[in-house]
C-alpha cells in the first residue's frame, strides 16, 4: 500500500506542510538490466486540501524524484484543522493521507 506521510506544523503564523509519498516515479526512459524500457509510472496530479478545501493542485512529470517529497505553506490554519494530501498516477492508481494540525 502506498503510504502518504504528512507533517503539518504551525510556525510564525503559517502552517508548513511536508509530505512524503511512496512511488517509483519511473520516467519511461530507464532500461532494466536486460535492456528493455521500463514503462512510465509516475504520479501526475497531487492535491492538498485544508479542511476539505482544495489549496494546492500540482501536476508532476517523471522528473520528480522517486518517493516524492514536497512542502508548501498555508496561511489561516488553526490547531485541530485537517490537512489532506492525495495523488493519482498515470495508471489511475491513487492514495491519500491526512493529519490534524497540532
Amino acid at each position, binding site marked *: 500500500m502506498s503510504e502518504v506521510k504528512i507533517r503539518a506544523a504551525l510556525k510564525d503564523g503559517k502552517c508548513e506542510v511536508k509530505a512524503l509519498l511512496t512511488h517509483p516515479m519511473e520516467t519511461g526512459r530507464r532500461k532494466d538490466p536486460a535492456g528493455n524500457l521500463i514503462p512510465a509510472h509516475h504520479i501526475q*496530479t497531487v492535491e492538498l486540501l485544508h479542511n476539505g478545501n482544495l489549496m494546492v493542485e*500540482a501536476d508532476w512529470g517523471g522528473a520528480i524524484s522517486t518517493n516524492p517529497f514536497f512542502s*508548501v505553506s*498555508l496561511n489561516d490554519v488553526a490547531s485541530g484543522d485537517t490537512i489532506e494530501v492525495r495523488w493519482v498516477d498515470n495508471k489511475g492508481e491513487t492514495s491519500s493521507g491526512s493529519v490534524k494540525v497540532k
Partner: protein
Amino acid sequence: LTEEHETVKPQQQRRLFIKGTLAGGAVVAAAGLGLIQPRLVLAAWPTDAFHSNSLEEALNKVFGSSTLEASDKVVLKAPGIAENGAVVPISINAEQLENVESISIFSEKNPTPLVARFKLKPGCVPEVSTRIKMGESGDVIAVVQAGGKLYSATTNVKVTVGGCGG
C-alpha cells in the same frame, strides 16, 4: 403550412426531452458506479507540456508564452553541485510577489524540461520545495505566474551522477 409546423413542433420538443432525459440518466448511472470522481481529474494533466522536449515549447504549452521576466523576487535555491542527479533538492520562494497563481520547475537539459507545476489557491504562502531528477548538468528555471506575468529565476546545477541513467 402553418398547421404542419404546429404539428411538428411538439414532436421535436418530445425528442429533445427524451434526449435530455437519457443523457441525464447516463450521468446519474456513471456517478452511481463511482465512475465520476469529483476533484481528482486525471484528464486535466497537461500531457503536451510534459512531453515537450525543449524549454521554449514546454513554456508555450504551459503558459501560452515563453516570455520570462528574470526577477530577484523569485528566490530559487538549488545545490551548485549535485552528487546525485536522481535527488536534487529545489526550493522556490516568491513571497515578495503578490497574487501568485502557480510555481513551476523546469530543468533545461532534461529530455522533457517541465518537471512540475504547483497551482496555488489564495491562502497559500507562495513557496514550494521538492526533489527533482536531473539527467545532466544544466540550468534549473523557476517560473512564477503572478498577475498575468511570468517571473523567473535561473540557477546552474552541476550533476556528478545523472538521475535518469540506466
